[in-house]
């Protein structure tokens, strides 16, 4: 069976959930091979998790330079393997870094690039969700290899044991004149809350929250539900909440099981980032707020009384 490459998304020696989704999807297309690019010793920490999710092979591309250059080490490793095993598809996380790797890899290997994919069938028919979920599009690559950017949270993860045989991949020496050197890396620390794009539940606040201090109402509800916290552009622009938590056209696209919108009017630009959520609950003072058009359950009222009451109800039920 053909090998299907999956670029492993990892941080601080831990595998991100999206990797398991990609391994699950890769099994439909062939035999999943996980590709680990990192500093020496990284693959050893990840091998067990990868094998438990169906990786038959684990390609180990380790070097001290792996973290010192922007996207080049990942592109080099994947391009080497594309040439070696001619995979029907390469699955890469659809985050900012991953898309850069994917675009460069598609150019270098002369492959078609399918971006922001939420599903793929065994015959390489991929599903995009575009314009913030307003349309779904079926597309395919006409090249031998399809480069696929995979959006986190799109399919259910299925565990399956794989052999996880490790194989070393030599990274070529970095060409300084064509590479961008990285220093002072500082990963964003999200604290104890789940990451926005990977969370099952998101609680988001908008302009109606009114101030940065008031956002603790949003955070308290989020914590009772083990949820990630999001914010609308209006809330971010007003300085209520940091930029990296912005949901919408110019922020992140989320697709959780449950999305709770507090004091968010639901402008088209915000809806573009969350309307594919499975269940949407909205609280807003304005009965005409457009968020109610897409909410499965809406309450017209004051978020400062409703949200704490809901937090209390959730606590009651989980104790």
């Amino acid at each position, binding site marked *: 069976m053909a090998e299907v490459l999956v670029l492993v998304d990892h941080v601080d020696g831990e595998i991100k959930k999206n990797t398991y989704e990609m391994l699950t999807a890769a099994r439909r297309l062939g035999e999943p091979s996980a590709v680990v690019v990192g500093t020496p010793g990284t693959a050893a920490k990840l091998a067990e998790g990868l094998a438990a999710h169906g990786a038959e092979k684990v390609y180990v591309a380790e070097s001290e330079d792996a973290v010192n250059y*922007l*996207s080049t080490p990942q592109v080099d490793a994947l391009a080497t393997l594309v040439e070696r095993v001619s995979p029907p598809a390469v699955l890469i996380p659809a*985050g*900012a*870094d991953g*898309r*850069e790797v994917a*675009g*460069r890899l*598609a*150019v270098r290997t002369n492959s*078609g690039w399918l*971006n922001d994919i939420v599903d793929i069938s065994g015959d390489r*028919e991929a599903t995009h969700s*575009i314009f913030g*979920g*307003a*349309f779904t*599009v*079926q597309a395919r690559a*006409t090249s031998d290899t399809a480069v696929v950017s995979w959006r986190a949270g799109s399919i259910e993860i299925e565990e399956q044991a794989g052999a996880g045989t490790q194989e070393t991949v030599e990274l070529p020496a970095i060409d*300084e004149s*064509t590479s*961008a*050197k990285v*220093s*002072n890396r*500082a*990963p*964003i620390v999200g604290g104890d809350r789940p990451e926005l*794009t990977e969370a099952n539940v998101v609680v988001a606040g908008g302009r109606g929250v009114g101030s940065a201090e008031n956002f603790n109402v949003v955070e308290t509800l989020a914590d009772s*539900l083990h949820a990630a916290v999001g914010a609308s552009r209006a809330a971010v622009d007003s300085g209520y909440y940091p930029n*990296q938590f912005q949901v919408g*056209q*110019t922020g*992140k696209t989320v697709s959780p*099981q*449950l999305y*709770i919108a507090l004091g968010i009017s639901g402008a088209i*630009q915000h809806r*573009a980032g969350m*309307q594919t959520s499975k269940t*949407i*609950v909205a609280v807003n003072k304005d*009965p005409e707020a457009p968020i109610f*058009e897409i*909410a*499965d*359950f*809406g*309450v*017209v*009222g004051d978020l400062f*009384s*409703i949200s704490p*009451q809901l937090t*209390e109800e*959730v606590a009651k*039920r*989980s104790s």
Partner: protein
Amino acid sequence: MNIVVLIKQVPDTWSERTLSDADKTLDRASSDAVLDEINERAVEEALKIKEAGDATITVLTVGPDRATDAIRKALSMGADKAVHVNDDAIHGSDAVTTARILAKAIGTVEDVQLVLAGNEATDGRSGAMAGMLGELLGWPSLTHANELSVDGGTASIKRETDEGTCDVTASLPAVVSVAEKINEPRYPSFKGIMAAKKKPVNALGIGDLGLDAGEVGLAGSLTQVDSFAPRPPKSGGQKVSDEGDGGQKIAEFLVGQKLI
């Protein structure tokens, strides 16, 4: 120093966007078109470099006739000249093919040291144009810049993405993509608007770039769209007014949905 700034006209995200039934491409005629906001920041950054030293700024766009509006806006902000690649054959080009066209077009501008672009357009959202161009030109790409400085033969940025922040440096020539926080773009002055009318716009077809029709557009792309469908409209859910028990009502709903 010669700087090329990539600009793009996109459907206004505040208007309804749709796809064309005929060939499954973005229906650019059906919605209002604007210069993508992130491109204005790229133009602004080029203008700052010009003001600090000396630079000639060429704006480059690939698009139909009405992309002229985006070009005029950039020229009225202060860019010096423009290259407009306009050819019916381009219609339907995917992201990789568009990158190939842009790379060829950058080659028509003499001695380019710096290419500036937005980090992500609001329509295609590939978010990788700078990386792809770097790959094609054999130049380093410095992406998602919140700050940019160009000193001698080196470009340095402060990079910020969802994953974190870092400093990035590379030698020129290089491609830099700018992020939303890099600057506040200026408004064109009346004088700028008048001056823009006299600035040269070099219109090129794909033949001028050494490409032929089979290499671009739907035919030249390595991806194909088989079908598309609008998402079924979400059925209007339940809406209640808070009678002092709004939180409890939500909790009951969530229990009913087995979400808590």
